[in-house]
């Protein structure tokens, strides 16, 4: 009888959770991947998102690149157009390839004074504006920004910071629009028209004078002549530059040095004047031949003496047959190769850095053999597709660019990029938030006494699923970044949340007497921390590269990780402390239960103390290794010490008999304030050596949190006093009194 009943419950509950999962407030989390692409149906967005590009010192998929840019400009990773959401990748593609995003409202202005200063229409204190609107005010924006930039960074006001940020964003956007501007229709170029007529007539003369010229040149001349200057105005910058370049080459070939020189001069001045305005380097997406470089370097290192590694043999075949025709490497013995002189030169000359299309365009003008032209032609195809509404061209172009980049890059890089695409797509941490909340809610309902067992299991199920998502998300990040789990503030929150849930699950397993209290603690702290992390995820590239001093996987994995575990354990202790207090409000709580929960607080606190102490010392050792002193009273160090001090105080006070379960529980709640202060609070000071974790604008939130916790402690004290006065079994002294 009971089984069937519980099955019905489970079914009913599953339905309910689905509803909850849908209703949940999701604004702060980006859900662009769950909205279908709008305008251009049929575009292969998945392929586009997976194109490797370079930004902020690392290779990332186009998708991440777009998110980083868009969140930097608009504070969100999606754009709302006519009430519908567009993903960052789509926005970026439209911006770069079609230039149709000028009226999307993306520029976030968070200060009414900025709006007033740059004379845009005021609607709300925090609003987004389109480029179309800001375009007319650019001079004003830049003027204010230049003024603000003269002030030292620490002394800038909110207004000054905002205006600089805005000006940078507008510049960034302009340079994005210009990424492929060499294919834009050319505007009239004053002073060249008469000369261009000369070029055409002279070319004609050359053709007549040299009837035996090669068909290649004949063809070029033909194509230039059929575009007289008037028609040239409608032609793209790229084609115009090509024409100029080839005309120059032909004049040089047929001994018309003066003309050739003049064309060169004109090209130079064009580059200096007109092109500089259109030149853009913000979209670095043409990779260096990394695979080739790696290969040649391995060969060079072996110097014909070592045997090449087996997997290199495979690479070797690819390059010899397809790419380099055996000119750069010679065989010395079986499996042994050496670079030829030409090979050394290739290694020296090859561009080792990522380049923007503009750079590639200019440098391939004179070098038709450069393989990077393939990438340009694929980009052109996308560009053409967007302007002519041809989906198949867009898709072919996307595929071309992706294949080209994957061919250039090493397998390791492309694998990491594709992992990152799936990391972005599944958005595991978002689901963690949803599931943790669901788990906490079900656990709460189960306490009401109705359908206790099944509700408990549903709650447990959600918690486990969430924990798996959470673990998988962290693992993916570790693989992509090749780092231990924590190296940024954002990651510290994600990891602390994971540890908290882990601790809670272990406690739930061992301490069954406390009846799902640990489970609830885990779920709720998981939810709260992940929701906070969600805010931080929006802070630009959350997988950004590390500054030199942090570049030590050993210390990152020991000191930072144990520190975060320590934070987490103390927070969990604090959370159980809350529950300890609140459970005394429930009518059906007995002393035995309360004692069990009190033990949980104590146990977690002990664990937290050990780990926080260990983390603090390891930090000291790292500091000793890299800064030369074990302890320097740096704010972050002090913060870590405060946590240890506070837990040690609690433990000794308990040992000395000054406090008991109530005191420990309330002390653990106060510990939350200490942790928050050590974790985020010290960053507010903006001093010290640990200044890679700084954030701004936290003060209010921290103050509210502190006040709330203090009120809670006061409330707990009142409750304790009342309970003690009622049926006091707390202390022997009270019992005798």
């Amino acid at each position, binding site marked *: 009888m009971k089984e069937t009943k519980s099955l019905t419950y489970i079914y009913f509950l599953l339905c309910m959770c689905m509803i909850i999962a849908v209703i949940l407030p999701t604004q702060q989390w980006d859900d662009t991947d769950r909205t279908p692409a709008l305008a251009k149906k049929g575009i292969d967005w998945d392929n586009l998102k997976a194109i490797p590009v*370079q*930004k*902020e*010192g*690392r290779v990332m998929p186009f998708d991440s690149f777009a998110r980083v840019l868009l969140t930097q400009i608009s504070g969100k990773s999606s754009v709302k157009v006519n009430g519908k959401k567009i993903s960052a990748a789509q926005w970026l593609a439209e911006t770069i390839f079609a230039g149709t995003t000028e009226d999307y409202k993306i520029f976030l202005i968070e200060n009414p004074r900025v709006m007033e200063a740059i004379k845009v229409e005021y609607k709300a204190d925090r609003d987004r504006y389109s480029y179309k609107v800001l375009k007319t005010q650019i001079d004003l924006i830049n003027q204010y920004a230049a003024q603000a930039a003269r002030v030292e960074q620490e002394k800038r006001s909110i207004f000054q910071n905002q205006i600089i940020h805005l000006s940078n964003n507008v510049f960034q956007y302009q340079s994005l629009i210009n990424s492929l501007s060499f294919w834009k229709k050319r505007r009239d170029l004053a002073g060249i028209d008469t000369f261009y007529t000369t070029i055409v007539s002279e070319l004609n003369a050359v053709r007549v004078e040299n009837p035996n010229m090669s068909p290649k040149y004949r063809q070029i001349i033909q194509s230039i002549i059929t575009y007289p200057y008037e028609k040239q105005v409608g032609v793209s910058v790229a084609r115009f530059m090509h024409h100029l370049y080839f005309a120059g080459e032909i004049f040089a070939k047929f001994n018309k040095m003066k003309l050739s020189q003049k064309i060169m001069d004109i090209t130079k001045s064009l580059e200096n004047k007109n092109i500089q305005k259109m030149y853009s380097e913000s979209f*670095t997406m043409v990779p260096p031949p990394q695979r080739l470089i790696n290969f040649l370097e391995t060969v060079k290192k072996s110097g014909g003496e070592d045997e090449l590694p087996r997997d290199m043999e495979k690479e070797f075949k690819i390059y010899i047959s397809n790419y380099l025709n055996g000119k750069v490497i010679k065989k010395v013995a079986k499996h042994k190769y050496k670079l030829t002189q030409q090979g050394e030169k290739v290694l020296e000359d090859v561009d080792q*850095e*990522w380049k923007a299309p503009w750079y590639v365009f200019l440098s391939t003008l004179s070098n038709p053999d450069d393989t990077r032209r393939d990438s340009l032609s694929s980009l052109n195809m996308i560009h053409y597709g967007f302007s002519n509404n041809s989906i198949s061209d867009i898709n072919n172009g996307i595929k071309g660019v992706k294949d080209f980049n994957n061919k250039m890059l090493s397998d390791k890089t492309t694998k990491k990029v594709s992992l990152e695409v799936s990391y972005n797509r599944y958005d595991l941490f978002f689901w963690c938030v949803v599931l943790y909340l669901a788990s906490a809610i079900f656990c709460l309902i189960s306490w009401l006494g109705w359908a206790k067992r099944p509700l408990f299991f549903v709650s447990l199920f959600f918690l486990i699923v969430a924990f798996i998502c959470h673990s998988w998300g962290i693992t993916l990040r570790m693989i992509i970044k090749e780092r231990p789990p924590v190296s940024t503030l954002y990651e510290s929150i994600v990891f602390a949340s994971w540890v908290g849930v882990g601790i809670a699950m272990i406690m739930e397993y*061992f*301490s*069954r*007497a406390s009846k799902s209290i640990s489970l609830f603690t885990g779920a709720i702290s998981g939810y709260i921390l992940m929701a906070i992390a969600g805010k931080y995820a929006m802070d630009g590239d959350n997988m950004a*590269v590390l*500054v*030199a001093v942090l*570049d*030590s996987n050993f*210390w990152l994995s020991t000191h930072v990780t144990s520190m975060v575990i320590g934070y987490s354990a103390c927070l969990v202790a604090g959370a159980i402390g809350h529950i300890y207090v609140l459970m005394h409000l429930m009518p059906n709580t007995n002393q035995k239960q309360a004692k069990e929960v009190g*033990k949980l607080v104590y*146990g977690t606190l*002990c*664990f937290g*103390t*050990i780990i926080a*102490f*260990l983390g603090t*010392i390891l930090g*000291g*050792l*790292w500091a*000793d*290794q*890299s*800064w*030369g*002193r*074990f*302890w*320097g*009273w*740096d*704010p972050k160090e*002090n*913060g870590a*010490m*405060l946590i240890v*001090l*506070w837990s*040690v*105080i609690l433990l*000794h*006070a308990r*040992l*000395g*008999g*000054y406090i008991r379960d109530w005191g420990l529980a309330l002390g653990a709640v106060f510990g939350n304030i200490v942790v928050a202060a050590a974790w985020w609070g010290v960053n507010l*000071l*903006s*001093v*010290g050596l640990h200044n890679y974790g700084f954030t701004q604008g936290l003060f209010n939130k921290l103050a509210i949190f502190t006040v709330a916790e203090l009120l809670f402690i006061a409330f707990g004290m009142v409750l304790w006093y009342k309970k003690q006065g009622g049926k006091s079994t707390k202390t022997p002294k009270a019992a005798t009194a």
Partner: protein
Amino acid sequence: MKNKKLPKSIDFLSSHGLTVISLLFLMVITIIGTIDQKYIGLYQSQKIYFESIYFNITLFKAGGYVFFLPLPGGYTVLAVLFVNLILAFVFKFRWRLRTFGVVVCHIGLLLLLIGSYLTYAYSVNGHMTFAEQEKRAYFVSYTDNEIVLTETSAEGEETKSFANEYLFKGATLLAPSKKIHVEIAYFFENCDAIRNKDNLFSNQEYVLRKIAPSLETEMNSVGVYASVFNGKNLIGRYYMYQGVPVDFNYQGVHYSIYIQRRKFPVPFSLKLLKFTRELYPGTQTPKHYESKVTLSEKDRSGQNSEREILISMNRPLRHKGYTFYQSSFNQEKDQAGNTIKYYSTLAVMKNPAEEWPYFSCLLVVLGMIIHFTPKMFRFAKRQGKK
């Protein structure tokens, strides 16, 4: 299970209560000392709150009176904790197997306290900044100063240096030959040199002007205003700006006096061969710094030996009790903005108690693990039975 025979004072001094109270004070000091770093800088905050016997906190000002609260400084609190711990060891600790972990842990803490005292009392630190191809056999303190007095006469040259403890108003520095002495009339914590238009206070071309000290003490330029006497005869009054010597002749002896950041000699020399800095592609974020240096020293047989060493972030050079860390760098640029010369800065530390924290912390953690692990298992076991 308290020992009732103990006198009350010893009972209190070795009690948990005192531990809790002093730890609470330590917490308060740490919080105040951390927050105040924003306003007075790390160095000052260390001096006032952590390396002090007591300090005063201004509560409010009313009617010309300042109401303040005196609080114990870091020294007092740590000393009390030390005494508390030792007495607890003697009178309170129960030496049983069960408490083995606790004892180990607290021995570690004791060592940590002693070690930090040794570090405070006997360690010196500073920096060694040099350009490529330059050689150094000394390092310079970040905060300590010294006045160097050189006498050159027919008999030869003699130099004497006067360190921090002489640098206050009214201090007297006696020259090696005892013919002259220098009296310090004013010590500038931070100053700049301006042109001396009216030969007001001295005959020098410049005078010093006091400016507000920077929060980062190492950024300050120190100076002194001093009078030089022969017995009771005034020879002259001089401004001395950091690193700029004052020269004069008196009775056939040439004197040269200057104030500078204190220099500590090192029993070997380092020569910077090459400084390398790597950036992440397309950014200004540094990825890696390193300095390639040649270490040369005389070995036991008196022969010069040289070897090349790479010092980089997180990989210091340890030699003869000195440790050199890659700390920062500087670059000299030409007009086109190309770097023509790199300067590398190595932080230098000489600390006789360098290894103490390693061992003591190991003991503390071991102790805690020994103590808490069985407890945890017992807890889990008991829960499992239910």
